[in-house]
């Protein structure tokens, strides 16, 4: 095994004077300052409410949505897999008989409490029918009442994927 000699810094006169290092640090900061002052469009931050983020990837976990079948009816079969997988118990499902002959079961009630949800994506992962997804790209949800944060079946069905390529 070779021995690697690690150089020890800080003992030379230049290092012990402190000032050269301080000045080189100040050079770095002033170069940033000058660059940004000359042209504020160099700044990477966005003025948020006016400028919405453009770099949300397709894997971003936003607010949930319930997907549709080809004929437009609900894809969910109320198997409770998502509610079982959910670590924060925020999904509340009540199943009912499906009368139109497409499948046997469907949810009568499908509520997601966004205040409890931790956005882990476990529900989308557990779903055997690809019925729940988190690809809406909605990262900001506000309401004035606690109750408004509970999304019901209709609201979840109305959410759209923010990108169509999937």
């Amino acid at each position, binding site marked *: 095994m070779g021995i690697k000699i690690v150089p020890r810094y800080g003992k030379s006169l230049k290092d012990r004077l402190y000032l050269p290092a301080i000045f080189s*640090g100040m050079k770095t900061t*002033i170069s940033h*300052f000058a660059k*940004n002052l000359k*042209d504020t469009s160099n*700044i*990477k931050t966005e*003025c948020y409410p*006016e400028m919405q983020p453009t770099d949300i990837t397709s894997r971003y976990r936003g607010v949930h949505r319930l997907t549709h079948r080809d004929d437009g009816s609900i894809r969910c079969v109320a198997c409770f897999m998502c509610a079982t997988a959910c670590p924060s118990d925020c999904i509340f499902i009540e199943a009912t008989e499906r009368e139109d002959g497409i499948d046997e079961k469907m949810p009568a009630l499908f509520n997601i409490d966004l205040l409890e949800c931790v956005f882990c994506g476990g529900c989308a992962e557990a779903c055997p029918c690809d019925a729940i997804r988190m690809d809406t790209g909605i990262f900001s949800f506000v309401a004035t009442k606690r109750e408004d944060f509970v999304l019901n079946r209709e609201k979840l069905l109305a959410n759209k994927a923010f990108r169509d390529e999937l």
Partner: protein
Amino acid sequence: MNTVLVAVIVINIILALLFSLGAAPILVWVERRVAGFIQDRLGPNRCNINGFRLGGLIQSFADMLKLVFKEDFKAKAIKEKFVFTLAPVIVFVSAFLSYMVMPFADNLVIGSQTFIMQGLPINLGALWFLAFAGLSIYGIILGGWSSNNKYSLLGSIRAGAQVISYEASMTLALVSLLVTYGSINLVDMVNFQSKLLFGFIPAWGIVIQPLAAVIFIVTAFAEANRTPFDIAEGESEIVGGYHTEYSAMKFGLFFVGEYVAMSASSALIVTLFFGGYNLPWLGTDTLKENFHTIMLAIIVILPLLSLLFGRWIIKNNVWPSRDDKRNNESKWLIRVLILINIIVIGILGCFLINGITETTTNIAVAIIQIATFAIKLLLMNFVFVWVRWTLPRFRYDQLQNLGWKILLPLSIANIFLTALVVVGLGV
């Protein structure tokens, strides 16, 4: 008492207020915007009055208003209510008073009268500054102690120990300057610096006394409790330090006092080392003799600078959403800029055509010197801010090492060196 005397004194007091108290919101704004730019972000930029943002300056006034109207909360555990209330006042008043001896311009001669252009017309100069800068630590210590909170007490003890160790070096660095300049009067010091060294270098303090300059600037950072020497507070260790228990305008006084102290330190640094109110190569007498040339130079330079500034405004002062009233601001700013140009050039043009009396020349020279002082002060304050956002806080033992083992011996050695040179050369 005559009207001229009263007018000059009132103007001096207003100027001193503007430079110290009026500078505080501007410095807070500079601090936040410079910090933003250094860290590649924008800083406060949305607060506006009818679309006028002034680059975010309005935010400082909004913050100040908030502090004034907040509830003045006081914990029940605080027994020493009088001292608790007195502490921020001491910090603020001493910072404010230490500003009062900074000369904004050379002695102004109107008719047969001579005026000292300072907030208070006294000749104590540097000693007055040292006295009041040293007093401000009492406010910090009393505030920390009367808060009845161990974090506050720790913060104030740390601040007290720091000031003791740095004030010694600061005063000793100043002594070597007093030996060089041969006076404690700041106006004399500035006039000494208006000479030329070897015929072409301005004899600024930083050229004559580089070591004293370094020591003084470093200790001034410690004196003003600014990074890298702001161990009086420390979010990770002792919460807010000495002002943990303070709220509303009591905290506001500490906050403003800190910025006034910083501005006072910058003013003293500018006065001692960077030629004070003098433009380089242009002493008061040179300015008065060549005033016509100076006026012509201003008439040429001012529109050029305004053009550059106007282009910068048009390019950078935009708001992302198009139909926001904040986008109208640039238009008005440019109008104001043009108006200033017209007024200044008009007045100077009148002087050029009609000739100018001696009193008017004196007043105009004083105005130029005040502007020079203001610009230098702003630049020095910028250095304070710049250093704050570059360097991390010193550890306590490093700070004491630097103070006692490095700065103190260096400043004493500097006194001997200076004395040897002064005696040896007989200057």
